[in-house]
């Protein structure tokens, strides 16, 4: 009340300035590790070890060269891409009809079952899978790894897409039915094209989660099918012998994810928050 006599304009400006200061501080805190990751990947191993940390140095691309040439990173990137898109594709084929079935025909117990899938720790599949995969010869194969990651993508895609299918107006589908479209046709020709934004949300999340996955390939992949996160982790075995490699490999594995998020940030955030609000 007393502050108002000093002029509301000045008070508002001060409040706005302090808001932007707070915002800036928050952003710095959350972005700093990413900045530091990229920053250090241009330093030599010796430069990274310097204390106090060096802020001025001659940047070098050697770390990236080493990672790409010496560690077969290209092969592992290809493995990661193949497994991510494989589990995305099969995940869509299984998850989309299921989401539609739940949204339109109300299989609520199934919806609950899918939530329970999220609760089970990945490690609890790993012991039985490891034993069965070994018996079936699925260890260190793309098929085995895609099957494993479907456990992430199918529940994820289904869970996100239920909400999107529920938003499709039933009248449109009924009209198509009257025009002689089968129920399967309604799903394919009416519902699916209408939920395209949802497909982007679910797809991007599925891709990122599979790309980031570490535990499954750590146990189920071998020399042939090792993925990027496992490779990045293997730089740790040399621990402090090649910190440049650690930073460069980390940057390389994170970069595609950041690019994807920046490209479709709206859909990414929509997918993330939808999972939460519906939980």
């Amino acid at each position, binding site marked *: 009340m007393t502050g108002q006599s000093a002029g509301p304009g000045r008070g508002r400006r001060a409040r706005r300035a302090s808001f932007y200061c707070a915002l800036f501080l928050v952003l710095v805190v959350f972005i700093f590790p990413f900045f530091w990751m990229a920053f250090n990947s241009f330093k030599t191993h010796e430069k990274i070890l310097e204390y106090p940390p060096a802020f001025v140095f001659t940047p070098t691309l050697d770390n990236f060269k080493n990672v790409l040439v010496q560690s077969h990173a290209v092969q592992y990137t290809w493995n990661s891409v193949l497994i991510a898109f494989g589990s995305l594709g099969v995940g869509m084929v299984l*998850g989309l009809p299921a989401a539609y079935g739940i949204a339109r025909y109300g299989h609520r117990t199934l919806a609950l079952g899918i939530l329970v899938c999220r609760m089970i*720790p990945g490690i609890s599949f790993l*012991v039985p899978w490891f034993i069965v995969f070994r018996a079936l010869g699925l260890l260190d194969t793309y098929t085995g790894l895609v099957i494993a990651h479907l456990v992430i993508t199918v529940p994820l895609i289904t869970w996100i897409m239920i909400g999107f299918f529920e938003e499709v107006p039933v009248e449109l589908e009924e009209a198509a039915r*009257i025009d002689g479209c089968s129920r399967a046709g309604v799903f394919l020709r009416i519902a699916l094209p209408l939920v395209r934004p949802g497909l982007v949300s679910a797809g991007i999340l599925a891709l990122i989660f599979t790309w*980031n996955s570490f535990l499954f390939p750590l146990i189920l992949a071998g020399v042939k099918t090792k993925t990027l996160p496992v490779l990045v982790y293997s730089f740790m075995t040399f621990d402090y012998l090649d910190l440049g490699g650690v930073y460069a490999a980390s940057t390389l594995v994170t970069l595609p994810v950041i690019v994807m998020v920046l490209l479709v940030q709206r859909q990414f955030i929509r997918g993330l928050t939808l999972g*939460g609000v519906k*939980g």
Partner: protein
Amino acid sequence: MASGKAEIREKPKEPAPPAIGLSSWVDRHISWFFVLPAVLFLGAVLAFPVVYTGGLSLFRWSGAAATPPAWVGLGNYADVFAGDPGFRNAIWVTAYFTGVSLLIEVSLGVGLAQLLNREFLGKGIARTLLILPVAGTPVALALIWRHMYNPSNGIFTWFAEVLRLPPQRWLADATTVIPSLILFDVWQWTPLIMLITLAGLVSLPADIYEAAQIDGASPWQAFWRITLPLVRPTVVAAAMLRFMDSVKTFDQIYVSTQGGPGIASQTLNLYVFDQAFQYLHFGYASSLLVVLFFVILAGNVVLASVRRGRA
């Protein structure tokens, strides 16, 4: 007109589909065809391991094909609860890590959502930048954090020196390793809680706040008496989601400490991993998994009752 005629012609067909055969039978039971592939797949890939784990938990087995599992009944469970020090340590570490990080993430996330719930320049960019920790590859982030925490040349050690704090050994010391991991977890996951809360805040009706302002409520009162009760279901949903994932945290801890120093940061999840893939105690690991599953279930029941109670 044409479509109207078609509609009329179509109608009498409806009551007589049995004659048409397979395709119409499929059409009538279509809802099952939609969900069945996913159900069968998840059943095979999920239910089987769950049943298998439950069964294996009653045996002692090293995973070797030559020596078949030996039946021990509830012996593994007896071992778990009779005072396996590794298990007791893991329960404590998991509760400490999950409990404290969840508490901080929820309060900080709601606070940040409150801060960002207004119109300002660069809102979209701020939101996108804040979400990056959630999307980043956990293994890579953990490697970076691990080195930032390095006691001899990490940047955090330098920060502590600049701020004139007592020297810290971060992940290398049994007393500070979990707080350090919590800080990492808070950094990574607070944005998720914030975004979900923000989505809930945006949907709140503005007229309540106008009414509260007219009645002389301070912003602080408005937050505690109006905002918080209204977004509570959303916040609790976010907390449940976070709890489920937090208990399962593997990559970050495995990469940055591998449960160390000693077993100071060995969560239940890492303990199971060690028992199974380090020591090949597959039977014992299975019984731990069953316990872990019930821990997660119990936590969710508690959170769900928080959501329903008083809401």
